[in-house]
């Protein structure tokens, strides 16, 4: 049984983290020093000085995540991001939020001292969080791929798709990212829409991704793809989109937007046009994982072929390796060996069931490989995104 952490706003978490957040790079060292005192405390933040609406929205969403019980914001004091308004927004969810401004505290040592006192008191609060039973229907699961190779579209991604179908069938919530990997698949994706509004939003999201790719000159299927057996851009894209499974798509959400209801959702993390043009989309895998977490994902299922070691702050990351040779070399970092499909030792259904079972075990408190190794990557870039109003 999954025993969740019941939050004042009605959310149910599967982890009970205290989050220390730097609101500018200038306060990141002090934040890390405060957080280093206890394994239950995680440090993350936004490095930029001039404020960014997207990054602020993201920090509020992450501070209000069901896996987070309390937040300590550490500010230098003169940066563009307003720690006070972030604190106010997170406090409205009923969480305890504290703010320290280094300039007011009198520098490094007084801030670290005060921060550690606050952390000790906030950890006591976290121990008193009530526990409530949860089921798969209460879970939000995200998926992303990185370090893909020719096996990814055959083994790991379709196996995650099988697990996603099981989550949706159990009345859970599932989010698939990477509209940039739906190039050439606009009508295939739109045909999966649960209703006409969702179809309109899906078409618009894929069209935006196509425009972005054309401008960024990333719109191609490379000779190596052909040599590897991929005939068309549709096939290449579907190899990634296979993670979504086969169930109807309820609509499109943007970064830091919680799915409005249960079922399968597409996360559009591609920037919208701003005075700076589009800007970069997903600068690295950790950013993509954090996008999913900002939408409320309790767990992120990450598929890889060439290999990856990352985890994340806030939510556990389950790594599914599709290449049997990579798995043999990096098994200490991998939670699931989907390479067994390539070796014809297991079926997609069997590995899909294993991923689903591991999701429930992880939700019940079993640590992932990345959690055991202490991985806590995060990345929040400058980005410009409008919210999605149909969602």
């Amino acid at each position, binding site marked *: 049984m999954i025993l969740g952490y019941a939050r004042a706003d009605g959310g149910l978490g599967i982890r009970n983290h205290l989050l220390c957040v730097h609101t500018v790079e200038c306060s990141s060292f002090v934040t890390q020093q405060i957080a280093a005192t206890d394994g239950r405390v995680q440090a993350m933040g936004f490095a930029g000085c001039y404020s960014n609406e997207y990054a602020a929205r993201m920090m509020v969403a992450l501070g209000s995540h069901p896996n987070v019980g309390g937040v300590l914001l550490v500010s230098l004091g003169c940066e563009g991001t307003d720690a006070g308004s972030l604190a106010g927004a997170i406090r409205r969810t009923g969480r305890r939020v504290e703010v320290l401004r280094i300039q007011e505290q009198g520098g490094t040592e007084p801030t670290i001292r005060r921060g550690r006192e606050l952390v000790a008191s906030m950890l006591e609060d976290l121990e008193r969080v009530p526990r409530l039973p949860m089921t798969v229907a209460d879970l939000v699961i995200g998926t992303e791929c990185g370090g893909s190779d020719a*096996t990814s579209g055959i083994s790991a991604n379709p196996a995650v798709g099988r697990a996603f179908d099981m989550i949706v069938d159990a009345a859970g919530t599932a989010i698939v990212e990477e509209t940039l990997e739906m190039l050439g*698949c606009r009508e295939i994706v739109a045909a999966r829409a649960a209703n006409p509004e969702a179809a309109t939003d899906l078409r618009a999201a894929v069209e935006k991704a196509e425009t972005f790719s054309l401008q960024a000159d990333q719109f191609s299927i490379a000779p190596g793809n052909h040599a590897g057996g991929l005939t068309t851009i549709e096939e290449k894209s*579907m190899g990634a989109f296979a993670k979504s499974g086969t169930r109807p798509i309820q609509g499109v959400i943007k970064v830091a937007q919680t799915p409005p209801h249960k079922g399968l959702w597409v996360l559009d993390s591609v920037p919208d046009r701003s005075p700076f043009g589009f800007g970069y989309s997903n600068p690295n895998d950790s950013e993509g994982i954090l996008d999913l977490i900002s939408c409320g994902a309790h767990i992120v299922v990450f598929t890889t072929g060439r290999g990856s070691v990352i985890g994340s702050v806030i939510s556990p990351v389950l790594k599914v390796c599709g290449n049997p040779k990579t798995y043999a070399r990096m098994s200490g970092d991998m939670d699931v060996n989907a390479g067994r499909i390539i070796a014809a030792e297991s079926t997609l259904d069997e590995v899909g069931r294993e991923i689903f079972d591991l999701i429930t075990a992880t939700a019940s408190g079993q640590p992932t490989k990345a959690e055991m190794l202490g991985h806590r990557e995060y990345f929040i870039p400058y980005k410009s995104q409008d919210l999605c109003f149909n969602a």
Partner: protein
Amino acid sequence: MSFSLQESKALQIDPRDNVVVALDDIAAGSQVLIQGRMLEALDRVPFAHKMAIQAIAPGEAILKYGVPIAFATARIKPGDWVHEHNAQSYFAARRKVEP
């Protein structure tokens, strides 16, 4: 070395698919095991490439992941290798550009 017929393995990703994916390099003439039944490979099919398991007429869809990922540009027989020589992107055809 064994003198028995070489047996290769292939994966049908979705039950609706009319192609399978080679899990090894499949030699022409070898017997391919596809979810419990055997089919003779008519061409060499490299690892991760596609082999037809049904006849596909020109213009008909190549189904992988249960969706049309290409259309046939030639008559395809069960056991044929399916790639750029006999299949084309709908998307590229629409855009009138090379894929």
